[in-house]
């Protein structure tokens, strides 16, 4: 048995954010954007804290990262551990397991959590990222956790020698298909148009003998009894519907921004993304945003981290100008 350890219990557990203190900036979100914002804000001398659901964010669900400059190949988890350790060097308080219910702009910005705690700051940086996009087809909710999965690294090993399908055409989908091809007997990858993943990944995909590729194909319905057993696909070229036996379906069709708690406080795109200018400012003075939650088009770790730095620098300038 191969034993591989993913040790991430902190050796120096950071302090938690205090509800009776006024911060210069509070960052919501602990992914690359949030952590880098904390680093930059703290180095500028701001009183800063992070409120997050989980430190590391969705990068934790990425098996391997090969496009973060300086790391030829690193697991998503290790990379986030490096980020976290770096921030911990600066003694930034971090509260995890926190979910924000509402942000209010009173004398200062107030962040209300679902556990009814209130945190106060002069500025807020929103870096709440995104959640997996659902297909929105019949059977998807019913079979969630009963064959339908949004985390290939979590659930892939449950399909040893099984027949699985990956939906999507981006890097995440191809990466998952490649990982699953080493576990399952057969992997099908289905995408409604053409692939938009990196060529280097597509080359690897084409080398795998147990992966079948269905392009210009849509998923219509997921069916089964107590577990999913098959899907109905629709080939856009031949206009034919097909029923295909599948034990596990991995949905990798991108993400939707996590902004539902904002309730009209700041301007959003129609797709829910926060509108930011080139400095990370939102429509509300003193509220900044960075990373996958914003309308910056490309969702990449390096871009989210850089946008986090920009938002922190903008927040610093805002405070220094005494605008709060």
């Amino acid at each position, binding site marked *: 048995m191969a034993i591989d350890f*993913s040790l991430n219990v902190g050796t120096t557990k950071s302090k938690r954010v205090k509800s009776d203190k006024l911060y210069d900036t509070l960052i919501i979100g602990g992914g690359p954007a949030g952590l880098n914002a904390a680093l930059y804000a703290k180095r500028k001398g701001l009183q800063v804290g992070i409120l997050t659901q*989980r430190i590391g964010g969705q990068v934790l669900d990425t098996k391997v990262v090969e496009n973060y400059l300086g790391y030829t190949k690193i697991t998503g988890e290790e990379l986030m551990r490096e980020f976290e350790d770096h921030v911990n060097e600066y003694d930034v308080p971090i509260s995890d397991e926190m979910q924000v219910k509402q942000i209010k702009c009173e004398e200062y910005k107030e962040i209300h959590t679902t556990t009814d705690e209130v945190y106060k700051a002069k500025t807020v940086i929103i870096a709440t990222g995104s959640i997996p996009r659902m297909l929105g087809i019949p059977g998807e909710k019913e079979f969630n956790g009963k064959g339908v*999965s949004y985390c290939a690294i979590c659930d892939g090993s*449950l399909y040893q020698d099984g027949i699985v399908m990956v939906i999507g055409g981006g890097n995440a989908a191809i990466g998952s298909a490649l990982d699953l091809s080493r576990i399952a007997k057969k992997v099908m990858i289905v995408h409604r148009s053409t692939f938009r993943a990196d060529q280097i990944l597509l080359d690897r995909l084409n080398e795998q003998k147990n992966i079948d590729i269905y392009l210009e194909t849509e998923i219509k319905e997921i069916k089964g009894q107590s577990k999913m057993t098959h899907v109905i696909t629709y080939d856009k070229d031949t206009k034919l519907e097909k029923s295909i036996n599948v034990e596990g379906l991995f949905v990798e069709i991108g993400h939707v921004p996590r902004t539902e708690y904002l309730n009209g406080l700041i301007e959003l795109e129609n797709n829910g993304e926060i509108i930011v200018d080139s400095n990370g400012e939102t429509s509300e003075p003193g509220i900044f945003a960075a990373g996958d939650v914003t309308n910056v088009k490309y969702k990449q770790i390096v871009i989210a981290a850089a946008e986090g730095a920009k938002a922190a620098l903008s927040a610093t300038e805002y405070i220094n100008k005494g605008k709060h």
Partner: protein
Amino acid sequence: MAMIDDNSKNQIKTIFEQLKEQVNVVLIVKKEECETCSDTQTFVTEMTDISEKLTLEVLDESDDKAKEFGVTMYPAIILLDKDNKDYGIKFYGIPAGHEINSFIMGLIEVSGAGEQLPEDVVKKIEAINKPIDIKVFITLSCPHCPGAVAKAHKLAFMNKNVNAEMIEANTFGEISTKYNVSGVPKIVINEDTELLGDQPLNAFLSAIENL
């Protein structure tokens, strides 16, 4: 060859400085038909060797003492405190991979150095007055799973009515099929209430209240 390399050992050693009191780890194995028992024994031996505050007793399922723990699957790990008090905290299968984190958190918890919860949450947990059995199905490659396991174990530690076990889904295929596990972490409370994903403590508590 050592299962845990020196680098990891040193990291774990630093974490184990948090251990407050002694923790007695019991591992129950089965001689035959147990593919992972010997690896688990090596792993737990190496882990408990890292700190003087940890002891290990390895029992065979046929031992009378083993039967007292009411264990039905092997390997099984039980964490007892310094006075050998059993809080109902179990691991079925090797807690390696990502699950090394929940194993470490369990040891710290039982040593008495677990994270302090807000007072209102403590009150809610202490108020649980019916027998609660929590099964958390996991895989070793799942980053969200240790959080769910640690929370279930924390409930067991804080209230004697709660028993909580981690079950490695690939090792125990039969029970995983029985509980229809095809996504992890899958949390099963008292046989029929199911939660999917690393749920916050409040979700565990409201599921328990609604039983």
